[in-house]
């Protein structure tokens, strides 16, 4: 079935996504980028540039480089917005015959929808290239405040580009869809969208099967670009203070400062301080001038606090216009790259008293949501299969009381997995399978789901028997744990119903515990593992001594016995370092003596036993 392309046709950048196996995924463009500048240009020789190539030549070809056409689409030429923007746009616009706007591109006058169509055409072609299949249908997003004419014009743009526009949906609605909030009945959602050049705020209400826009607000000329400008201005004035030189007119210098500003802004989203370091920024008669300064998050926040404050005021106003109180809002969704700024997250959190959702890349969330809408529409034809995941890890207890995980937390079910275990002692007649659930390292700290014993294991040295333990969870969440002795074919199993039947609190507590005790658990596990290693080595060394009674010198035997004794004493205690030291010393001696033994019996033949074992193994594997 052909895929429906979800398109976020933005003012500055656009993005696209498709649903694959029930999950939306961003498609990269031909240049390998996840977003495409919404810019179209005609070069001097009539060649057409779209996206990043158009952006790169904009400076040298401003009159024929069309950006921000979204500000004009579907509007009347006499609109106050258009008149205001006209002064800011370096390309020519005029009043069309029906009172709409026309844009001059090359020698032709085009409708804004035709310009948008060129962007959509590129996205379509790049998507087809990426997917290797034809794309004919799309969902396109528009701001919630777009009127019918603007929506119609956006739809037209899609059709001109050769796409059947299945639906034009609101950007905030798409963001909510990406988070799956369409299932949250009767909830009120605020979408805070701080983009590159525009700030939009929307209040949504989710009812039975629709998402309704209750109110919209914002500022069409407030965005991340304003923040960048503030940083660049700050750099310029700092440099002036330091060197006395005004570099604001030197485009090359400003460009380097701009690069540094962008980089610093990104870094300060995750660190508290960064170093701006631009050697040879410029020069005067005394020689080259470098620019070095430390730039803190606190300083950045001081520079832009009023811009962020403005967005918060607008948010308050819009929520009030929807007839709601801040406390009525159930979810807050962050959209737009600028929302990565910790100050913004903090202020929004303060306003609503709850953590905003920002797990999905804010540059991509709208396109992903558009793809989800496409997926829902295709779901009319083919039911979407919803699959559960295991809420916590499942495993069994192994030597030393360690929990050995078989199925990690968040594994999609149905699923089955098996692993081979063995015995811990010579001639061990049975093994106990202790089924556990939880994230802690030690068995006792996890929840016991069940236990059973597999007996009748034929006498054999430790580590010899092959016990295959398999975990199987079916589509109904029923867990089946089976243990099978590969030599005898004997098996035992337990069926555990409702293995995921934990309350949310229980799940949360168990996960939180795992985090809280992570360091402590790691220590306990290290101890158990060190003990296991020490015991195993003492055991194999003892066996070596017994098997080669006559070949080992008495002095060596004495040495090994003393060191074995030391290891066995150490494993009874709980000093990890002591156990490790004793084990290492024994290992050194055992290796030296073993090496000598090997030299003595250099020409011994491989036993036929091995061959039999392999055959048996492959047979039983084929059966399972």
């Amino acid at each position, binding site marked *: 079935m052909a895929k429906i392309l979800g398109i976020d046709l933005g003012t500055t950048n656009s993005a696209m996504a498709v649903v694959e196996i029930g999950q939306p995924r961003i498609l990269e463009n031909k240049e390998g980028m996840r977003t495409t500048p919404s810019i179209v240009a005609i070069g001097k020789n009539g060649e057409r540039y779209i996206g990043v190539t*158009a952006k790169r030549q*904009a400076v040298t070809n401003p009159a024929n480089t069309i950006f921000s056409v979204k500000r004009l689409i579907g509007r009347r030429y006499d609109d106050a917005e258009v008149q205001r923007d006209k002064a800011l746009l370096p390309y020519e616009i005029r009043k069309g015959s029906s009172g709409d706007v026309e844009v001059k591109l090359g020698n032709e006058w085009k409708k804004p929808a035709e310009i948008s169509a060129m962007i959509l055409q590129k996205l379509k072609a790049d998507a087809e290239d990426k997917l290797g299949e034809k794309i004919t249908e799309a969902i396109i997003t528009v701001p919630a405040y777009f009127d019918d004419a603007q929506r119609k014009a956006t739809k037209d743009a899609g059709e001109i580009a050769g796409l059947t526009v299945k639906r034009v949906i609101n950007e905030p609605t798409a963001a909510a869809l990406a988070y799956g909030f369409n299932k949250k009945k009767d909830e009120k959602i605020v979408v805070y969208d701080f983009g590159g050049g525009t700030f939009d705020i929307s209040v949504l209400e989710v009812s039975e099967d629709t998402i309704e826009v209750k109110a919209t607000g914002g500022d069409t000329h407030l965005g991340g670009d304003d923040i960048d400008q503030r940083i660049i201005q700050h750099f310029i004035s700092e440099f002036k203070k330091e060197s006395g030189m005004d570099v604001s007119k030197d485009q090359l210098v400003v460009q380097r400062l701009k690069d540094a500003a962008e980089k610093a802004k990104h870094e300060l989203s995750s660190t508290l301080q960064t170093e701006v370091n631009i050697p040879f920024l410029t020069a005067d008669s005394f020689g080259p001038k470098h620019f070095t300064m430390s730039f803190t998050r606190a300083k950045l926040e001081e520079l832009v606090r009023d811009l962020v404050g403005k967005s918060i005021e607008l948010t308050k106003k819009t929520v009030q216009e929807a007839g709601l109180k801040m406390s009525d809002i159930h979810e807050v969704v962050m959209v737009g790259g600028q929302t990565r700024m910790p100050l913004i997250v903090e202020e929004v959190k303060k306003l609503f008293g709850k953590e905003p959702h920002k797990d999905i890349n804010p540059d991509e969330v709208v396109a992903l949501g558009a793809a989800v809408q496409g997926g829902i529409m295709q779901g*009319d034809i083919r039911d979407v299969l919803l699959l559960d995941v295991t809420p916590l890890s499942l495993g069994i207890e192994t030597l030393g009381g360690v929990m050995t995980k078989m199925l990690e937390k968040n594994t999609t079910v149905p699923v089955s997995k098996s692993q081979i275990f063995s015995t811990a002692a010579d001639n061990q007649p049975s093994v106990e399978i202790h089924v556990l659930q939880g994230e802690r390292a030690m068995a006792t700290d996890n929840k016991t789901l069940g236990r059973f014993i597999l007996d009748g294991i034929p006498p054999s040295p430790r580590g010899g028997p092959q016990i295959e333990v398999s975990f199987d969870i079916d589509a109904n969440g029923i867990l089946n744990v089976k243990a099978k002795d590969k030599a005898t074919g004997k098996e035992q199993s337990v069926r555990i119903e409702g293995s995921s039947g934990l309350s949310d609190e229980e799940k949360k507590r168990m996960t939180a515990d795992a985090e809280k005790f992570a360091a402590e658990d790691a220590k306990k596990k290290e101890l158990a593992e060190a003990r296991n290693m020490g015991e195993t080595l003492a055991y194999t060394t003892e066996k070596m001594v017994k098997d080669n009674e006559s070949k080992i010198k008495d002095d060596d035997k004495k040495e090994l016995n003393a060191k074995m004794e030391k290891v066995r004493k150490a494993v009874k205690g709980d000093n990890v370092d002591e156990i490790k030291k004793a084990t290492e010393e024994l290992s050194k001696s055992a290796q030296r003596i073993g090496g000598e033994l090997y030299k003595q019996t250099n020409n011994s033949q491989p036993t036929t036993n091995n061959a039999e074992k392999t055959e048996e193994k492959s047979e039983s594997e084929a059966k399972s």
Partner: protein
Amino acid sequence: MTEENNKKEEPKQQTAEEKTEEYLNNWKRERADFLNYKKDEARRVEEFVKFANKDLILEMIELVDDLEIASKEVPGVGLEQVTKKFQDLFKKYGVERIKMGNKLEPAIHEVIETEPGGNKMKEVRAGYTMRSKIIRPVRVRIIK
């Protein structure tokens, strides 16, 4: 138009056979989706591995930019050799400097300033390709 699409069809009685058929088809589809996804994923991983160093390389290129400016300002103190060493290292990882050329091609050039009446290009910051893909365009000024 969309409203029409939304109208639910009358629920009709499905026979067991039809249901089996439907389930089997869905299962086949799911299998096919999964296998195709695996193939796509393998391709993506391959691509990812090829360009895994890209971010680190891009940051290193910035250091080379500084070195190049420095060696122009202070020639003959060995900075050229250091730059050369970096370029050789880049080559080893499939990263090459783009030759500027003399005709403006926005696929490889980024214009940051234009002199009125200018028609020649001057490189102000080098561009690079990685395994033949442009990872940074050449920054140019258009001059007279």
